[in-house]
């Protein structure tokens, strides 16, 4: 029973650490942080997203792919070779961990779109990559691209997160932004693709909660060339942010106001300009409101945003310490890894985003036209 066939609800732990001065640090901190919240997972899913880890390949999309078998890998590589310039290809470096059982084959490819194909498709390289990833995930049985961003990667497994970290040797990577997820699904999926974070391009999302608006969100976002193959909240949340920020050019703040808008009575109290703006925003994108309990960490190459549902039905704590900003489901997970005395620690209010961008960055997502 894989994700995509059924919808599986789950409770979880999440954590994220960013160094806004882009100081690089290893995966050890985030593993320790998430390990504190061991009780919030049940060994059926754990994973990490790490930014800045592939400094040599900044221009390439790093595809992390699970294969059920050799056939699936063959088909996928045929597809990649046909459509993409494939740079470095390697099996994911792993460490044997007793509690991590029956891993699939895990490979990574550093790729770019073929110019000819890009011209034919008439789309941006990002969009082209999105389509390519979706095509693989939808059409090649036994293959699943679970990470496709630049200079970043997602690492996930059916395991406790700290074991997954060990398994993927994350202590050996260095990044400026790490997020982690420990999962407590309510039944027993055996599929690695279903673990978190979910990734698309640079986006990655870890999430704790259950979105009651899921089908409204999904059916809306699917109008705009997304296909929710996993039926997971993280998948749809990732698409929503991609849609709002990358496709509709909304700022991260506005995107947060779409998914967790103020109550109408709060909007009514705003000044005329903001009132109209929020009214338009909510009226237009009502179907993208994420309802039900959630705390999420959305990350992209320029930073991260932690957000609670608007009535705060899930725990979320944030803290600052110099250039570092921490978020986690529990305060202890932050205190455990904080280097010095925390300058500020607080529980963000429902619907109030905690946004931490790299110094000098305008927005969370490095938009392609700007990058070029």
């Amino acid at each position, binding site marked *: 029973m894989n994700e995509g066939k059924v919808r599986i609800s789950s409770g979880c732990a999440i954590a994220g650490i960013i160094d806004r001065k882009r100081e690089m640090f290893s995966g050890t901190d985030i593993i320790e942080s998430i390990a504190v919240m061991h009780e919030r997972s049940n060994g059926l899913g754990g994973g990490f997203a790490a930014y800045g880890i592939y400094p040599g390949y900044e221009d390439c999309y790093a595809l992390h792919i699970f294969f059920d078998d050799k056939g699936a890998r063959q088909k996928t590589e045929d597809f990649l070779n046909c459509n993409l310039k494939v740079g470095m290809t390697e099996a994911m470096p792993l460490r044997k961990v007793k509690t991590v059982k029956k891993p699939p084959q895990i490979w990574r490819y550093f790729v770019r779109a073929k110019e000819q194909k890009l011209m034919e498709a008439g789309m941006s390289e990002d969009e082209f990559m999105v389509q390519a990833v979706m095509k693989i995930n939808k059409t090649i049985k036994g293959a699943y691209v679970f990470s496709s961003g630049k200079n970043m990667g997602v690492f996930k497994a059916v395991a406790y997160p700290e074991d997954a970290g060990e398994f993927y040797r994350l202590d050996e990577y260095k990044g400026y932004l790490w997020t982690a997820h420990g999962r407590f699904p309510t039944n027993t999926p055996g599929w690695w693709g279903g673990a978190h974070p979910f990734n698309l391009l640079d986006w990655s999302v870890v999430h704790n909660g259950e979105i*009651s*608006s899921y*089908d409204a969100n999904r059916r809306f976002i699917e*109008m705009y060339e997304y296909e929710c193959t996993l039926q997971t909240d993280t998948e749809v949340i990732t698409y929503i942010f991609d849609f709002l920020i990358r496709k509709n050019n909304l700022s991260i703040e506005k995107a947060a106001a779409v998914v967790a808008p103020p109550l*109408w009575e709060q909007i009514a109290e705003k000044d005329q300009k903001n009132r109209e703006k929020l009214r338009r*925003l909510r009226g237009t*994108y009502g179907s993208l*409101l994420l309802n039900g*309990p959630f705390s999420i960490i959305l990350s992209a190459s320029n930073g991260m945003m932690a957000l609670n549902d608007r*009535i705060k039905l899930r725990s979320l704590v944030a803290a600052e310490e110099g250039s570092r900003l921490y978020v986690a489901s529990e305060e202890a997970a932050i205190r455990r890894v904080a280097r010095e005395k925390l300058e500020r620690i607080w529980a963000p209010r429902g619907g109030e985003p905690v946004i931490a961008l790299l110094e000098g960055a305008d927005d969370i997502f490095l938009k392609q036209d700007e990058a070029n």
Partner: protein
Amino acid sequence: MGINLVMQEYEVLRNEAKCIGCKICVNQCANNVHRWDEDWQMIISDDKYCVNCHRCVVFCPTGALSIRKNANDFTFNANWENRHIKNIYRQAQSGGVLLTGMGNDRPYPVYWDKMVLNASQVTNPSIDPLREPIELKVFLGRKSALNEKDEVFKDDIFPWLELDLPVMFSAMSFGSVSLNVHKALARAAETMGTYWNAGEGGVHADLKKSMNHTIVQVASGRFGVNPAMLKEAAAVEIKIGQGAKPGIGGHLPGEKVGQEVADTRMIPVGSDAISPAPHHDIYSIEDLKQLIFAIKEATDYKKPVAVKVAAVHNIAAIASGIARAGADIIVIDGFRGGTGAAPQAIRDNVGIPIEFALAAVDQRLREEGIRNEVSIVVAGSIRNSSDIVKAVALGADAVYIGTAALIALGCHMCQKCYTGKCNWGIATQDPKLVKRLNPEIGARKLVNLLTAWQHEIKEMLGGMGINAIESLRGNRLMLRGIGLNKKELEILGIKAAGE
């Protein structure tokens, strides 16, 4: 003449032990069923005129009256049911089309009743509407993609209707219903932060102050339409069809066209008001587009334009065409929708259930990626709050209620609206009968009904862990089907219970 073969449909039972001879029944029956008989010194009831409207039953202060279906049945015949035989008698007598009122009363399946709702357990908390806000505000109109850079946050790009709850009052014209019905609907709509639709026939001068809560109709007869009305109204609805009688026009007989109706419709007193079956300037979709934009021009693009169609077989394609023709709102009226008068053969046999029509339209518009560019309002027998919740979950932005509103105003569903002798002061223009509907009471009852439904909708939403109605719209995972076959489930886009 010969003998009339049509038997009385009802019997009036008077409990003489309780009858105090007060004659309220006598003066309340516009059909002259009851009369005081000087010779008998008692009230005599002439059953054959009884339409089972219960006016006398409700008004009898001692509860002495009850109405029963006439027990006289024909010899059992599963094929030749009573109604077929009676209808043949009627038509053999009259040579005319059988008329009826209100909606389709045949025992077609009601799909609302074959869908059940979800609720949160353990993994997701339900929300208590008494403790947490649950929001029912809805905007109807075109939602263009917003873009920070394009400065599209101006409010007047596309006009919206703002509803405090996803329920509006469906089109019922002044003429088919009394002015007091309009007054009650208008006041209730204002109080509840929603809209009422004046139907084809304009808006009476007394209701001008409520225009910002009024949706006006442009229908095939164009009655009462003028630029000022279009400009003052909250929105304009082009009526193509009606669920109770798709493909059929309307006919308000001259005797109902008194001074007030005539003034409002802008026609001579006593003249028949005939709405043709089609709009004679709309023979194709591109003609509709012209009318939509003619109305938009006339209203400076400040009013949403809705197009109302009956749910018919290829409704999904029709709806897509309407959306592409520029309508801001599509209103779909299912085959159980009500009417003041329709040929029975049409009412009972034409059109499809609103549940299927809604599911098909919502799905089609999504497949075409244009669902957010048009709002869907559904009508045609929304009976309670759970019907509304299910409609929204299937994909509707809001619903229209017509029959339910009339029932709140006192309608007892006798289906005799076309006679003009409505004892409840609803479907009549007789001043004595119209008085019977006090619009203040009416408005209060409508407000109560919507308030009650509002509470129930919030309870249901809260149970599902949803605190804003927009998160339910099209959220078909919240529905499961019971007793539906695979094809029906597929059309509705829902899973079976247990799946």
